[in-house]
C-alpha cells in the first residue's frame, strides 16, 4: 500500500473517529485522573514455542518486576534533594551526552548489527538483546545475545536508581531498549514499572531517568 493511500485511509479513520458515541466524548471531557489505575494489559502473542522462550527469560522478568516494586517503594520515600541541587541540570546533561556517545560507539562496533530500514528485531527469539535507535535518522541496531554476566548487569541496572531526569530538558539522540526474548521490551531510561514494559514494539519515550554506571559499563564492554 502506498504512503499516499495509507494517509488517505488514516484521514478517513480520523473522520470516522468524529462520529464516535457522544457519551465517550462527554466522558473524555469530564475525566480526571484517578490515583487508582487498572494495570496495563500486555498483548504478548501466545504460541507454544513462545511459552518455552518466555520461561527461559522468566528469571529476568521477575527481577525487573522486583526492581519495579523496589523502585516504586523508594520513590515513596522523602526526596533527598539531590535532584534539585544547583548542578543537577549539568549532571544530567553530562550523563545524557555520555550515554548518547556510548550508544553511538556501540552501534559502530562488532556487537551490534544494523537492521534493514523498516525491519523489526525478533522479539521472541528467547535471547536477551539490546536495541538502539538513532532518533534523527531512524536507523536501528540490534546486539548479539547478551551473555549470562551481561544479563546480570541488566538486572542490576533495573534495581539501581539511575539519574532522575529534569522535565523539559534536552532529549537524547539515541533510544535504547532491552529485548527480553519473550516479547517484552524495557528500557533503562524509564523507571521500571508495569506501564513502562512494552509488548513486541520499540516505543518512543522521553527519559524519566538515565542509566547508572552499571549500564554504562555494560555498554563500554560491548563497543
Amino acid at each position, binding site marked *: 500500500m502506498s504512503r499516499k493511500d495509507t*494517509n488517505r485511509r488514516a484521514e478517513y479513520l480520523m473522520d470516522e473517529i468524529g462520529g464516535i458515541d457522544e457519551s465517550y466524548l462527554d466522558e473524555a471531557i469530564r475525566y480526571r485522573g484517578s490515583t487508582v489505575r487498572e494495570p496495563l494489559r500486555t*498483548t504478548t502473542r501466545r504460541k507454544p514455542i513462545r511459552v518455552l522462550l518466555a520461561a527461559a527469560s522468566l528469571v529476568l522478568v521477575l527481577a525487573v518486576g522486583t526492581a519495579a516494586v523496589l523502585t516504586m517503594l523508594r520513590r515513596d520515600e522523602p526526596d533527598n534533594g539531590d535532584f534539585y541541587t544547583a548542578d543537577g541540570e549539568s549532571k544530567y546533561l553530562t550523563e545524557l551526552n555520555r550515554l548518547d556517545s556510548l550508544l553511538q560507539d556501540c552501534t559502530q562496533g562488532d556487537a551490534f548489527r544494523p537492521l534493514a530500514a523498516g525491519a523489526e528485531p525478533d522479539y521472541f527469539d528467547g535471547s536477551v538483546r539490546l536495541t538502539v535507535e538513532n532518533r534523527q535518522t531512524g536507523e536501528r541496531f540490534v546486539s548479539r545475545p547478551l551473555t549470562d554476566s551481561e544479563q546480570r548487569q541488566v538486572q542490576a541496572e533495573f534495581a539501581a536508581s539511575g539519574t532522575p531526569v529534569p522535565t523539559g530538558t534536552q532529549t537524547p539522540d539515541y533510544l535504547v531498549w532491552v529485548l527480553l526474548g519473550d516479547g517484552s521490551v524495557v528500557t533503562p531510561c524509564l523507571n521500571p514499572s508495569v506501564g513502562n514494559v512494552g509488548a513486541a514494539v520499540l516505543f518512543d519515550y522521553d527519559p524519566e531517568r538515565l542509566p547508572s554506571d552499571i549500564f554504562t559499563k555494560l555498554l563500554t564492554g560491548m563497543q
Partner: protein
Amino acid sequence: MEDYQIVDLYWARDERAIAESDVKYGRMLRSLSQSCLSSREDAEECVNDAYLDAWNAMPTERPTYLGAFLSKIVRRISIDRFRHDHRLKRGGMGKAVEELTECIPDAGPGPAEELEAGRLRSALNGFLARLPQEKRVMFVQRYFYSMPVREIADRMGLSESNVKVSLHRIRESLRQFLEKEELL
C-alpha cells in the same frame, strides 16, 4: 446552566442559547479547533460557525451531551478548514493523522465500500467499549480532541512517556482489531 436548559433555549429560538453555550463550552471548543488548525483566528471562526450549525440543527435534534454535540460540529468544521488550507501536512491535526497511519492494515477494502455500511464507525464504538476507561479517555482526548500528549499526561496525572507508550499500544490494538474485522 445545565445542558438541558441551554438546549431548551435553542428550541425556544432564544439567542441566549449561544451565549450560554459559549460560557460553558467556548474555551474547550476553541482549544479543540485550535489544536486542529494551529491558528487562533481560524479557531474562533470555526467555533462561531459551529454555534450557527447548532442553532440550525435545533429544534429537530435534542442532544443529551451538549458539549459532545458541539465538539463534533467544531471538529468537523475545523477538519474541513484544515484540509482546505493545508492538505494533510505536519503540525496541528496532521500529527495526529500521521500517528493513525499506524492503525491502517496492509490491505483491505477502500473507504468508499465501508462508508455506506457505516461499519467502521460502529466498529470503533465497539473497540472503545472494550477498552479500559483510562485508555478510552486517552484515545478520545488524543484523536477526537487532538490534545497534545503533554496536556493528556497533565490531565491524567501520568508521565508523558507513559501516555505515549499507552497510545502506541492502543493504536497497535486498533490496527489488529481493524485487520480482524477486515475494515480499512
